[in-house]
């Protein structure tokens, strides 16, 4: 017997049941069920770290989880932009962004060294690298050394057809 989410006449009910044909029938999204994201992450992490899970499969799971974290971070950034809280939370932003970048560096290193199994939608290590590069750019732009005002003015004028 295993826990599975099965559609019943009553909505949002988790029932103890035998696995269905594939054992992978999940009809409710985590949002509908309101399962905390950190619990899902902990469950996936725990599974991926089992010794009987091949390393490339574990790498694919960690990479998938990392992409979910990146997307959640972007959404949070935009929520803060919308509510006007972005500028006042820059210290937290810096710490969170640095943490996500560090995780991404570990994910890409592991994928390059030990391979990565097929992932949802078939994203590749190059897609991870591109996302990581964009996060590095965001860190550089928000928290790194700034261009001088004059340099920014010259760069903006380039788009008007001026020369440097």
């Amino acid at each position, binding site marked *: 017997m295993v826990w599975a989410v099965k559609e019943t006449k009553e909505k949002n009910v988790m029932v103890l049941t035998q696995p269905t044909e594939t054992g992978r029938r999940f009809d409710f999204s985590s949002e509908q069920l309101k399962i905390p994201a950190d619990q899902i992450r902990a469950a996936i992490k725990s599974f991926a770290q089992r010794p009987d899970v091949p390393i490339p499969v574990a790498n694919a799971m960690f990479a998938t989880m990392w*992409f979910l974290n990146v997307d959640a971070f*972007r959404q949070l*950034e*935009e929520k803060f*932009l*919308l509510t006007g809280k*972005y500028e006042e939370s820059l210290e937290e932003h810096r710490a969170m962004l640095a943490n996500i970048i560090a995780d991404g560096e570990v994910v890409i290193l592991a994928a390059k060294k030990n391979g990565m199994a097929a*992932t*949802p*939608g*078939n*994203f*590749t290590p*190059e*897609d*991870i*690298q*591109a*996302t990581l*590069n*964009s996060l590095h*750019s965001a860190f*550089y*732009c*928000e928290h*790194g050394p*700034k*261009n001088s005002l004059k*340099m*920014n003015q*010259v*760069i*903006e004028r*380039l*788009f*008007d057809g001026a*020369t*440097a």
Partner: protein
Amino acid sequence: MGRQPEIEKILEAWWALDHCAPPERAKSESELNKLLDSAVGKSEGLYTRHQILDALWGHYKSYRLEKRKNEKVEVAQTAMKKT
């Protein structure tokens, strides 16, 4: 006042890189880099991609805000139509 069309294109490509599905990220990055390299070329190599992104960072934050606000308006309009 609207933004320069080339700046707008860079912001669109930057947004696409940050928001497209994971399997499309490398392609999106390549498209953004093409636009940035064009700007680097205009500066005759004086500025780097990073310096150009830094110069446009404020524009990009405004662009993201506008996109999200527009999405909210669209959701509200769709909901109004349904009622």
